[in-house]
């Protein structure tokens, strides 16, 4: 397998805590890869180490087969930080040109690409060319777009997005998704971190879930879901829930966990339990059943199963 990123056993300790512990993961070239985890699980620290912004205490990181600090490799990587990183007083076009030049793109090439991207993300409209405005005259959403353009101007082979969806309205979130799919189609590798499982499930080929600085699981999304087993049942009920029904659902020998999604319940069966038994018990209790379907668990479910509420709390490290 050809890996865009190959991380072997990296750890990073800060004075008061361990942010990342013995983490290994491989990102296949040309895939969309999600790093999932609760806030403070070590996602941003991992990304910073991939970018060589900070060095791991132990372990190695190679990008396209080269060590991550290599200058040539660095020019093939595009990075969107979680918080905006733009000079406030700089004109937008000049800011973008500077970011492109830092990646070795000649000025005149950058100019052409900036014009294209500004139109594509509607920062240049017949009414107003925001490229001539200063960064701090732009709204948050527009600044985010500018930052995103800056990430892609040098046409990187590997795009790293740290929490790209946080704070995006639905329209911009859709534009971001489209761009990610487009990048994949062009053979680029995209890796992003998020704590929003829905986005990850829809976009990613592979994922890695980390908590408390450690890897919980990783692999292709289909494989992860299959491995999580077929113990999940989507149950749709009609009418009021009687004490009898509640008793069936509370039976720990059958049901280990229930997630109420309002329109249906996502039920995780206790290992060894027979789903047919559950169905019979529900019918016997007089439940009106609208839907009873064995489903693959959502990433969200898998995440809750594997990380749990406890993990979310303990995973807080303050550094993301």
């Amino acid at each position: 397998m050809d890996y865009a990123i190959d991380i072997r056993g990296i750890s990073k300790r800060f004075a008061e805590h361990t942010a990342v512990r013995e983490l290994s993961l491989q990102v296949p070239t040309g895939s969309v890869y999600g790093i999932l985890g609760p806030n403070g699980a070590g996602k941003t620290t991992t990304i910073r180490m991939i970018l060589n912004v900070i060095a791991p205490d132990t372990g190695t990181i190679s990008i396209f087969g080269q060590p991550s600090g290599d200058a040539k490799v660095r020019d093939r990587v595009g990075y969107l930080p979680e918080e905006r990183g733009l000079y406030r007083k700089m004109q937008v076009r000049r800011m973008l040109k500077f970011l492109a030049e830092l990646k070795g793109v000649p000025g005149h090439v950058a100019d052409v690409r900036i014009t294209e991207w500004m139109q594509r993300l509607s920062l240049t409209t017949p009414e107003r060319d925001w490229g001539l405005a200063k960064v701090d005259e732009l709204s948050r959403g527009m600044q985010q777009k500018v930052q995103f353009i800056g990430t892609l101007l040098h046409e990187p082979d590997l795009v790293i997005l740290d929490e790209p969806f946080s704070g995006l309205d639905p329209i911009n979130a859709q534009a971001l998704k489209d761009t990610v799919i487009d990048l994949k189609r062009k053979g680029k590798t995209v890796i992003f971190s998020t704590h929003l499982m829905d986005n990850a499930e829809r976009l990613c080929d592979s994922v890695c879930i980390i908590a408390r600085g450690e890897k919980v699981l990783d692999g292709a999304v289909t494989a992860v879901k299959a491995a999580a087993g077929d113990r999940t049942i989507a149950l749709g009920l009609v009418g009021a829930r009687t004490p009898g029904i509640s008793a069936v659902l509370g039976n720990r020998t059958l049901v280990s966990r229930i997630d109420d999604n309002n329109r249906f319940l996502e039920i995780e069966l206790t290992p060894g339990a027979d789903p047919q038994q559950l169905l019979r018990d529900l019918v016997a209790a007089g439940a009106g059943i609208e839907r009873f379907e064995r489903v693959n668990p959502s990433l969200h479910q898998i995440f809750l199963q594997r990380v749990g509420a406890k993990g979310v709390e303990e995973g807080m490290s303050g550094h993301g």
Partner: protein
Amino acid sequence: MGKFIAVFKREYLERVRTRAFILTTLLAPLLFGAVMTLPAYLSMKSLKNTKLGRTEILDATGTGFGTDVQLRLTGPMADTGTITVKAVPPSELAAAESTATHAVQSKAIAGYIVVDSSTLNDQGARYAGREASSVGEMQMFENAIKQALVTRRLEHEGLDPKRVDALTKVRLSMSAERISEKGRGGTGLASTILGGALAFLLYMSLVLYGQNTLRSVIEEKTTRVSEVIVASVNTDTLLAGKVLGVSAVGITQQIVWALGALLIYNGRAAIFAKLGLGTLPPVSLPHVSIGMAIALALFFLLGFLFYSSLFAAAGATVSSDQEAQQAAQPIILLLVASIIFIQPILLAPSSTMARVLSWLPFSAPIVMPLRMSVVALSPIEISLVIAGLAVACALAILLASRIYRVGMLMYGKRPSFAELGRWIAQS
């Protein structure tokens, strides 16, 4: 190299483009010019209006001496006032004086001079007027009378009047040379002033611009641009580009100012004429050899770079403008200490202290130009100090780079010196 240029270009252009920069660059020379010429202009102007302004010479010599004096007063300053001569017989002098006194009281004239036979016999002349205590004015009258007297005597001795004119017009300017315990090593007061001025100019520009690197670093930290940039360039390149770019801004301004000063200096005759100031005041510039000029420029440049790097390092340790002031203090202290040593070094430019301070990178850019102007230093010593300073600059940039790399992601508490040491060691 391309990335270095990108950083350099950004730091330079973003600053040079600001309105503040353009205004200070263009207006400061005007301000300097005004500060330098205005007092002279105003005093000249007041001289013209109130002093030489209508003065009467009462000539009781009966030999036309009053006209001689008048010629000497109006010749070079034809447009500064009017001098009239009134020839009076000695017997009517008292009456003429009282008429003149009334004229002064009624402000018809500013004053009057009395020359009579006693003047010709070295017994003196008299002046009476509103401004009898004005030293400049009295000196002017005295000189004119003295010269007229000398001319008359020489003519009396049979000299050709034209020769007399040529002989009596003496222009004297006295140059002062410094003699120290080391002998006549000094190259004169003017170059000492030059050395001091350069030291002070460096100090001023560092106070004005050195802290720009500090602010530039803090801006990157607070806007989190640093993360994006460090993912693209290594911090050595970044810091070198930043320090050189910001320094280039300060140096651009100095060059514009220097050119402005040169322009004013070369065109000073025209400017003085325009302002109606007549003659040029004597200005003597110290003689500076090409080699010395290059050395002075290098000291200025390297000093600027060295301190800018230190300011950048200080900026990397803090995360807000409020803390920046504190972080900059130790560096300003180094600078001020070097300035404080100017006086003792001028008194003993070859002392051990002076020599030691010449070798320390933080004081060398200030102390060396001073010493060079008062004692002859060997070119080898100067070259070695410059080389040492250049190395110190490179080290300072590397140091700043390391602190930047670690400090970039640290927010909140300022590091102690021990922690700083750890940062430098670990990156």
